[in-house]
Every structure is written in structure tokens, then in C-alpha cells.
């Protein structure tokens, strides 16, 4: 009886300290979400400006041509950039991304294309390594707080591979699987095609001004397109980072809730065990006293 009591006390202690840890993790994640969201907001002016400049450029030079805008029907390989996190403790965040990526890879295979994964984040890297799959390139170490330099690195490599042909180890199109931070409670895995870039004909009331180009439109396009691609990747990295923190917060919140619930159950069990022990002791004493009284009565 006393042994069970001790065991329960120990269990309560350990659940309590786990709850403390998960609660702290939850609070850390909450404060990081705010920071991650600020980073998303801070990157907006640049993204807006570059989109605007590109719109102006394309709309005044109809039929403009650039390798990054061209479909490459000859190339059968497709790059799939998968953005996961470096750390766990985030519920199904990485599992969701990988599941979506796997279904995309399967769909591409069914189309007769050859998918090539490019993986960001330790969790995705280990997943692919464990299954001994071929991966074209991996990046890690910045999933919590991506800088533009990271996006640049990824963008450069992808653009390079896009411009190569199949035989040189290049790819014909680039897809990205990332997580969008919709709100504190919702994070949505998204799949988009990054390259070749598509020019969409959009009706806009605001006609961009007729720019002159310094030194030339072609040179400006040469600089703008890779920058635009990098800024898109940066945006996806930031969104994923914010979504990751939100996932951590939710996972840690439910862990804390579960721990508290468990604590209640254990406390009740312990009280019951203590009561049982006391009752037994009393009945033992009473039984002993009775036995004494009987023997003394003779």
C-alpha cells in the first residue's frame, strides 16, 4: 500500500515538471509568433515594390522573353522544394508538409515526370535520409529565423538548376511545398509552382508608368527576375517559420492541458490510496485491540 502511494507521488512530481516545461515552451512560442509575424510584415515593402516594378516592366514590353519565363518541355525532371523545420515539438507540422510533398511527388511520377526533392530543415532531411532517398540539395539551420541570405542561397541554386538541361542535372520546373500562416489557429500547407514564372494578364485600373530603363530593359529584367524569385522564396520561408511557431504553441498547449488532466487523475488515485491505507490501519488497530480485550477477559 505504502509503495503504491510513493509511486503515485513520484509520478505526480514528474508530470508536474513536464507540464512546467511544456508551459514554458508554449509561452516562448507565443512570443516568437509575434516576432515571426513582424518579419513577414517587414519583408512586405520589398516584395510589393519588386512585384510592382516587374509588372511595369512586363506590361510595357509585351512579348518580353527571358529563360526564367520559358516552359521547358524538353526537361522531364521537376524540382520539389520542401520546407520543413529544424526542430520537432510541433505536432503534425512536418508530417503534414511531408505528406503533401509525397502526394505531389507521386502525382508528378504519374504524369511521367521525374521528381527531384530539395529539402529545407533538419526534420525533412532526416525523413529522406532514413528512407535512403536521393535528394538534390539540403539546407538547414535557419528554419526558426530565416534571413534573406538563406533565401538567396536557395534561389541561386534553384535558378541555376532550372537553366540547366536534364542531361546536366537540371530541372524543367520547380514546385514548392510550404506552410502558410493563415492565423494563430490555422496553418495551411500550400503547393505552388515557382518556375517557370507565369505572366498573368490582369485587368488593373492603375496603369503603371512608362519607365525608362537604365541601362536597358533586358538588363533590368536580368536583375529583377532572380530577385523576384528570391523574394518569393524568402516570403515562403518566413511564412513557414511563423506557421512553425504557431504549430509549436498549439502542440505545447495541448501537452500542458494533457499533463494537467493527468495530474488530476493521479491526485485522485493518490488520495484514494491514502484513504485506503488509513482505513486499513484503523481496522488493524481495532482488530488488535479487540483481540487483546478478548484474551485479557479470560
Amino acid at each position, binding site marked *: 500500500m505504502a509503495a503504491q502511494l510513493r509511486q503515485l507521488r513520484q509520478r505526480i512530481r514528474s508530470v508536474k515538471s513536464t507540464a512546467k516545461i511544456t508551459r514554458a515552451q508554449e509561452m516562448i512560442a507565443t512570443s516568437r509568433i509575434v516576432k515571426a509575424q513582424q518579419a513577414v510584415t517587414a519583408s512586405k515593402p520589398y516584395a510589393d*515594390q519588386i512585384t510592382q516594378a516587374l509588372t511595369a516592366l512586363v506590361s510595357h514590353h509585351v512579348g518580353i522573353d527571358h529563360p526564367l519565363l520559358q516552359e521547358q518541355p524538353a526537361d522531364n525532371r521537376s524540382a520539389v522544394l520542401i520546407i520543413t523545420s529544424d526542430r520537432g515539438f510541433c505536432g503534425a507540422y512536418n508530417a503534414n508538409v511531408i505528406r503533401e510533398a509525397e502526394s505531389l511527388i507521386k502525382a508528378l511520377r504519374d504524369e511521367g515526370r521525374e521528381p527531384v526533392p530539395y529539402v529545407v530543415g533538419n526534420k525533412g532531411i532526416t525523413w529522406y535520409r532514413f528512407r535512403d532517398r536521393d535528394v538534390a540539395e539540403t539546407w538547414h539551420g535557419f528554419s526558426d529565423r530565416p534571413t534573406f541570405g538563406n533565401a538567396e542561397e536557395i534561389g541561386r541554386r534553384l535558378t541555376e538548376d532550372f537553366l540547366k538541361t536534364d542531361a546536366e542535372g537540371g530541372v524543367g520546373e520547380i514546385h514548392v511545398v510550404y506552410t502558410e500562416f493563415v492565423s494563430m489557429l490555422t496553418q495551411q500547407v500550400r503547393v505552388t509552382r515557382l518556375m517557370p514564372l507565369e505572366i498573368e494578364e490582369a485587368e488593373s485600373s492603375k496603369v503603371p508608368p512608362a519607365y525608362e530603363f537604365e541601362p536597358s530593359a533586358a*538588363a533590368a529584367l536580368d536583375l529583377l527576375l532572380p530577385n523576384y524569385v528570391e523574394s518569393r522564396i524568402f516570403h515562403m520561408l518566413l511564412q513557414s517559420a511563423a506557421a512553425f511557431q504557431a504549430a509549436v504553441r498549439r502542440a505545447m498547449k495541448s501537452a500542458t492541458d494533457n499533463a494537467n488532466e493527468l495530474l488530476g487523475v493521479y491526485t485522485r488515485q493518490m488520495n484514494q490510496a491514502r484513504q485506503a491505507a488509513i482505513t486499513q490501519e484503523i481496522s488493524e488497530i481495532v482488530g488488535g485491540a479487540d483481540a487483546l480485550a478478548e484474551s485479557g477477559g479470560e
Partner: protein
Amino acid sequence: MANLRVGLVSPEREIWSGEAKMVVAQTIEGSLGILPGHAPVLGVLLDGSVVKVEPADGGEPIVAMVGSGFFSVAADEVSVLAEQAELGHEVDVQDARQALEDALAAESEDATTERRARARLRAAGIEA
């Protein structure tokens, strides 16, 4: 005369924004001064150059180092977008000096690192 509305933006944050009388930027083909009423231009910045902004309130000119990027001028709005950008007074002079020395010592073909380091020093107000 109207003023220019200037925004100096890097991918990670907005470095500076406000009203200005004049902006001087360096393109691949040379310096370009922009005054209010300038025709719409989209120019490629020289990687590792200095952008100078004269604020409308007549204060000290704002000098910033910029890495690869471009600027656009339209309807008195100037936006400078650079992948690397740093305001002159934010430059860590010692760090920039070190970077310049390293770049010179490396004697690499690529002069960008050296130019960037020089631009950082120039933005900080030190000739190099």
C-alpha cells in the same frame, strides 16, 4: 516645389523612408541625380555603391551603402531596393575595414566584396 517620397528598402526591413529634395544613386553606367518631377526610370544599381538622399527638412544628407538591387522613380516616388543595404551611421567601421583588408588579401577575381567594403566605408564618411 514638390518633394520626393523616398523609400530605401531591403528584403528584411525598411531602412529609411521620408521626404527628400534630391536622391543620388549610382547605376552601372554612372551617377544619376533625381530631382522632383523626374521622368519614370527603373535603373540597376551598381553593386557596392552609395546612395545619397538629401532630406526635405534640410537636415544632414542620408548616406547608405547598397548591394545588388535597383531603384524606380515614378510620380515623385523613389524606391531603392537593395539586397544589402546599410545606413552610413550604422556601419561598423572596424568590421568594414577588416572586410576590405580581407578582400584585398584574397585578391579574388570578383571585385564585388572589395567594392562593397569600400562602399560601406564611404557611407560611414571615411574615404577608402
